[in-house]
């Protein structure tokens, strides 16, 4: 016991570094054991959990795709029947979009954004814990349902009337709709946390023009989530009401409309693509800057492109409905807007090219994935321009051409940057380096396997092969390419397997990483690898876009925060001028209880509408427990 323990309201100004670290650790650390694990609100622990869970879903979804490829390798194969196949492709799409792609991007942000903006925890950390539990519950609901042969079988887009009360018997479609609610609640919660973190918790001095591009991209993404997710909320609620209590939203005979569903779904569904892609833009920008040893060319242009993409994203949902028989004038407008989005995307590509051209490239694994991204994503963008043309789209819509297109966009445009980002930030997250040699092999296999798997699908689509078919007849000229595609998928899978092995092995026994192994310039590298529970012992002060490059000697920091409670600093939106000190909430089990109560309510509501009434009682109790002050210093400050 040191004499200082008795001093009330101790501040970091009075302490030496060792003592400061000790005290901050005891204030911020998550207690060991099950209780600590369940009640933690540390953004790094939750972010890590989120990332791992999302990658587990990626692996599961990948296994589903291999099953589909096995079935499609030959004509009239009998490996999987139509009923199971429909469940499998629905699960693959739903899982990859709702349980992998969106959550993994948010998960990376949950981990990285507070570090990159130089704060100690995300805004609303308990909401963050709640959002993870909701996500996990939604994922479990979907996968357990699938395991017991009750998985949704109506496609990830769940078009009515096929998913409606008359044609989707049983609870399969209800499970889909409620799973959406789970992931939607968790995504919206994270989006709110990120917006507030970026707006109000940036390090003093980090004005809007000094935010790292990854943070900008997550800010725009969060706004996209906030504006887009309510559409699917309305849609899935209407669907469940139609199915459960007999509302008539989608019944044309009673004034409803089938296309209403498609409008609502794609008003969400198209921004969804950018919700997945924009974070990847941020990752690419970060990696490019680090591995070319210079800041990204055209920072302002990049930010404008992000915002422009975000706005345009809401103006092109109809290009998913070009063959639904809408008025021609409307279609023409959406052709123009869909094509126009190529301009900001093009700007981003050119800026990265300029950065590489002007920089000094270092060919490490993360950078290799970015190069792979450039090659693949540009193809995906080109085919995107193709499907934006109405006449072109009438031939390729709902064919394997589109399957190829969006895999080029989503795998090329998001998974490649994501894998690069994992290699890049792995040392920060785990404190250990990944293996460079295995990384190169994994990249090579994934890049080759991906192109061999998905490029031929363009041709299959043009040859008339529709999507979502569980088999095809031997007289169709598709069997050769399909066999080729299925074999190539094995290469792709091998690449992913290698990546997973490398990640697990490195996390356990990789070489220990220094604080800043890549000589990067953003704030997350200013702290140790992995960061301590409190992220920074004193709040960093920022004066440029590259705080670590411009202050190679010592990091400017601010002092004056309490160490006996979880304090961080709140700054103004534009200039990041300090406005207040703020206590960040401590660990709490109530988010878990609230998530469990919500889970019971949502699953119960598949069976009776009264669940909404009775199920909200425990939920209200849990939420009251969550917000009721416990008399801690954080509560009463």
């Amino acid at each position, binding site marked *: 016991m040191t004499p200082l323990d008795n001093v009330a309201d101790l*501040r970091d100004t009075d302490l030496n570094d060792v003592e400061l670290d000790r005290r901050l650790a005891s204030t911020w650390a998550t207690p060991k054991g099950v209780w600590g694990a369940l009640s933690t609100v540390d953004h790094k622990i939750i972010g890590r959990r989120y990332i791992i869970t999302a990658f587990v879903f990626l692996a599961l979804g990948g296994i589903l795709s291999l099953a589909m490829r096995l079935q499609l390798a030959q004509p009239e194969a009998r490996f999987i029947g139509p009923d199971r196949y429909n469940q499998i492709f629905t699960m693959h799409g739903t899982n990859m979009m709702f349980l992998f792609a969106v959550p993994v991007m948010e998960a990376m942000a949950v981990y990285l954004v507070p570090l990159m903006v130089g704060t100690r925890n995300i805004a609303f950390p308990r909401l963050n814990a709640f959002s993870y539990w909701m996500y996990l519950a939604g994922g479990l609901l979907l996968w357990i349902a699938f395991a017991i042969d009750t998985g949704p079988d109506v496609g990830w887009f769940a078009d009515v009337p096929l998913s409606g009360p008359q044609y989707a018997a049983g609870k399969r479609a209800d499970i889909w709709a409620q799973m959406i609610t789970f992931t939607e609640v968790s995504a919206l919660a994270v989006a709110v946390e990120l917006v507030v973190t970026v707006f109000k918790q940036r390090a003093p001095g980090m004005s809007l023009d000094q935010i790292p591009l990854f943070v900008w991209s997550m800010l725009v993404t969060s706004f996209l989530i906030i504006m887009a997710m309510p*559409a699917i909320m309305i849609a899935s609620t209407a669907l469940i009401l139609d199915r459960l209590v007999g509302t008539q939203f989608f019944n044309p005979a009673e004034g409803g*409309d089938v296309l209403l569903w498609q409008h*609502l779904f794609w008003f969400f569904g198209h921004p969804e693509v950018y919700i997945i892609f924009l974070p990847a833009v941020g990752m690419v920008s970060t990696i490019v800057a680090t591995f070319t040893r210079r800041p990204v060319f055209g920072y302002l242009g990049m930010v404008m492109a992000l915002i422009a993409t975000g706005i345009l994203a809401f103006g092109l949902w109809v290009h998913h409905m070009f063959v639904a028989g809408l008025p021609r004038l409307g279609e023409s407008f959406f052709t123009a807007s869909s094509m126009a989005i190529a301009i900001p995307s093009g700007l981003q590509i050119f800026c990265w090219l300029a950065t590489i051209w002007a920089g000094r490239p270092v060919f490490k694994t993360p950078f290799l994935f970015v190069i792979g991204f450039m090659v693949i994503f540009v193809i995906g963008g080109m085919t995107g321009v193709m499907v934006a043309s109405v006449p072109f789209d009438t031939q390729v819509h709902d064919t394997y051409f589109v399957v190829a297109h969006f895999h080029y966009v989503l795998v090329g445009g998001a998974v490649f940057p994501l894998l690069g980002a994992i290699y890049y930030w792995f040392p920060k997250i785990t404190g250990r380096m990944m293996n460079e040699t295995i990384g190169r092999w994994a990249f090579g296999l994934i890049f080759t396997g991906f192109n061999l798997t998905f490029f031929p699908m363009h041709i299959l689509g043009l040859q008339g092969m529709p999507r979502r078919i569980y088999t095809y007849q031997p007289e169709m000229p598709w069997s050769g390419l399909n066999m080729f595609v299925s074999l190539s998928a094995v290469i792709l899978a091998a690449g992913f397997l290698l990546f997973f092995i490398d990640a697990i092995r490195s996390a356990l026994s990789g070489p220990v990483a220094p604080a800043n192994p890549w000589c990067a310039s953003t704030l997350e590298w200013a702290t140790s690898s992995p960061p301590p529970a409190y992220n920074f012992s004193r709040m960093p002060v920022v004066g440029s876009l590259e705080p670590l490059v411009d202050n190679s000697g*010592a*990091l400017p920091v*601010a*002092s004056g925060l309490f160490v006996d409670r979880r304090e961080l600093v709140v700054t103004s939106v534009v200039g990041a001028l300090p406005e207040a000190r703020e*206590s960040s909430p401590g660990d709490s089990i109530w988010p878990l209880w609230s998530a469990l109560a919500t889970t019971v309510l949502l699953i119960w509501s598949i069976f009776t509408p009264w669940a909404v009434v009775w199920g909200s009682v425990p939920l209200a109790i849990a939420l009251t427990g969550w917000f009721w002050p416990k008399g801690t210093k954080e509560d009463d400050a």
Partner: protein
Amino acid sequence: MKQTIVLDLSKLPPHGLGTASLTWWGTLAFMLIEGTGFALAIAVYLYLMSLAPQWPLHAPAPDLLAGTVLTLLLIASLFPNILVARWAKAQDLRKVRIGLIVMSLLGIAPLIVRVFEFPAMHLNWDQNAYGSIVWVMLGLHTTHILTDLIDTLVLTALMFSRHGDNPRRYGDISDNAMYWNFVVATWLPMYICLYWVPRL
């Protein structure tokens, strides 16, 4: 990494109010989410209306009484609400306590009137798409009144507990007041949409 102290934060207030408060921004973000939801519900209403041969579908236009009373009630509730926010800013515990009790009552009153709005639509949710959308719109707004009422009740209880007199609680109260303004504000376009658009 070595550090040089360049800034002293110790003079800052220990808790931000208004735009310096995180919960203020969080409330704003949730209002944006729900506002989009309300806007989409209205969009669905207008979309269905654009498809229908006549509107409202197989029903007379809704009776105005209940809806109008509720609208007036909600608008009237804004005045005590703004006062509560002002008192919370002044950290006046006694007045805040009274104001919260008034606001709790003003949260319950519209719920009672709302009960009469559903029959005023002259048809049930399962009769046709018009019935479905008006019930969903009313239901959506009702849940917002309800959740804000529960929040107000919990805050009222808090203000009478030992945790009450605390700047953080006052911040919560002004955020809650802001949210109530939002609940009232979203109702106005819904009211016009539900009660007056069918009379056009």
